[in-house]
């Protein structure tokens, strides 16, 4: 009962903060509003009985992504309207590899490799032990593929930076 009430309150606030993140005039307010929204998302995970996901949500999205966003926003004076963006073309090979890997994951999903195992809704299914066990047991291939996509992204980013230096 109280869980339902909390769920609806958190959901409404989540939607409001995300809308504000889009509509806010200042990019800094946008970023902070998005950070608050990440917390509400983490809260929903806790209500669903998945504390591990909630912690990871906060650590990765708030601790890494949002810090980077704020860093970039503060480095460049984004209070001017952003008109000149992204003059370069993405390196074709890397983008092809990423698209191919995403398609591969989609293929495996459709094959039913990613279907929910038995006993998905038992108590404690969102605990750290269970998440780790399932990742390593049933979802090892998709998990590794996802990490490979990230690696390709990292290499692509490094490639863009090195181009600017004329090497």
């Amino acid at each position, binding site marked *: 009962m109280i869980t339902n009430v909390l769920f609806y309150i958190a959901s409404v606030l989540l939607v409001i903060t995300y809308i504000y993140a889009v509509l806010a005039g200042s990019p*800094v307010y946008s970023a*902070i509003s998005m*950070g608050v929204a990440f917390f509400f998302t*983490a809260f929903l995970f806790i209500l669903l009985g998945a*504390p*591990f996901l*909630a*912690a*990871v949500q*906060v*650590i990765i999205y*708030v*601790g*890494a992504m*949002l*810090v*980077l966003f*704020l*860093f970039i926003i*503060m*480095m460049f004076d984004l209070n001017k309207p952003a008109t000149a963006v992204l003059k370069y073309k993405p390196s074709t090979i890397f983008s092809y590899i990423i698209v191919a890997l995403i398609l591969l994951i989609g293929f495996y999903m459709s094959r039913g490799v990613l279907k929910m195992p038995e006993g998905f809704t038992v108590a404690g299914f969102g*605990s*750290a032990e269970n998440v780790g066990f399932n990742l390593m047991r049933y979802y090892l291939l998709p998990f590794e593929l996802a990490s490979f996509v990230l690696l390709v992204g990292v290499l692509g980013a490094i490639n863009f930076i090195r181009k600017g230096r004329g090497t």
Partner: protein
Amino acid sequence: MVDYITILIYALISIVVFAVLLSTVAVLTLAERRISAFMQDRLGPNRVGPWGLLQPVADGIKFIMKEDVIPLEVNRFLYILAPLMTIIPAMLAFAVVPFGHDLFLRGRVINLQVANFDIGILYIFAIAAMGIFGIIIGGWASNNKYSLLGGLRSASQFISYEIAMSLAVIGILMVYGSLRLNDIAQYQGSLWFGFIPKWGILVQPLGFIIFIVSVYAETNRVPFDLPEAEAELVGGYHTEYSSMKFAFFFMGEYANMITASALIATLYFGGWQVPYLHNIGFIFPKLGIFHLQQWLVALIEILSFAIKVGFFLFLFLWIRWTLPRFRFDQLTDLGWKVLIPLALLNIVVTGALMMLRII
């Protein structure tokens, strides 16, 4: 059926922990000044009360009575919010640190910690991630170039060293197989080759070095206190702050130091463990058992934890007044090019040793 007595006991524990944390922060501000004074052959503040022990009280009164200046050009909302965003996470992070064996009281199991979460150490990382925003936003909202630079340095420093810190902790998690700090402390009481306590420092020596360096960077302490380097940035992110708002930043930093010391002690030095002490008393291999009462054991363990944390707090101060500050490019180089590869190496070596059943 809700067990109200258990709730009451935990409420009591959390109040006590909060009070001890705050008073340790107060004592630490004095200790910092006294110890730095002794290292520089001075006396330090010794006028208020015996040995200057009442100095923190005088400082607190001064902070509250001072005029609270809010500069005209700041972003008022975020400017006021930033100190709160620093101090609240700093106070929350200590909640999962255990400081003693589980107690058994009339059928109830009482953990000597505020909250025994399933996610344990991830909770501390998540809370630490929140704490950094106070500094970044405070630096930005102050509308001051020095403050902004302090905030930016803090952001980049945090990202660089958080990765190394998490990777170093993964080694510990592999060896002890649990995210709960209470379990990690518990397993460190088991014996290696039958007589050596299996403390983290012995199992993960490289991980310990990486962790302690990253923790110093995460808490913005010398030699990594670039966000508030007074020679370059006036006061860094808190240049524009005065009275109690400044005090909140200050207290947040000290509270983070306490949590960091408690974490170092818990992960690498056995937490509340005393070698050979179990919940029935001392058990020496091949020498026999020396029985003790449960409350006496708990007392010894809390004392042992306090001594360990106290030592690491002293180490923080010792290093601050001994080492010079890094240059910023040296700092990022150390984080990305030295600590992260070493941490990855540590994970691989730990995995190999575990496969060989050495640890």
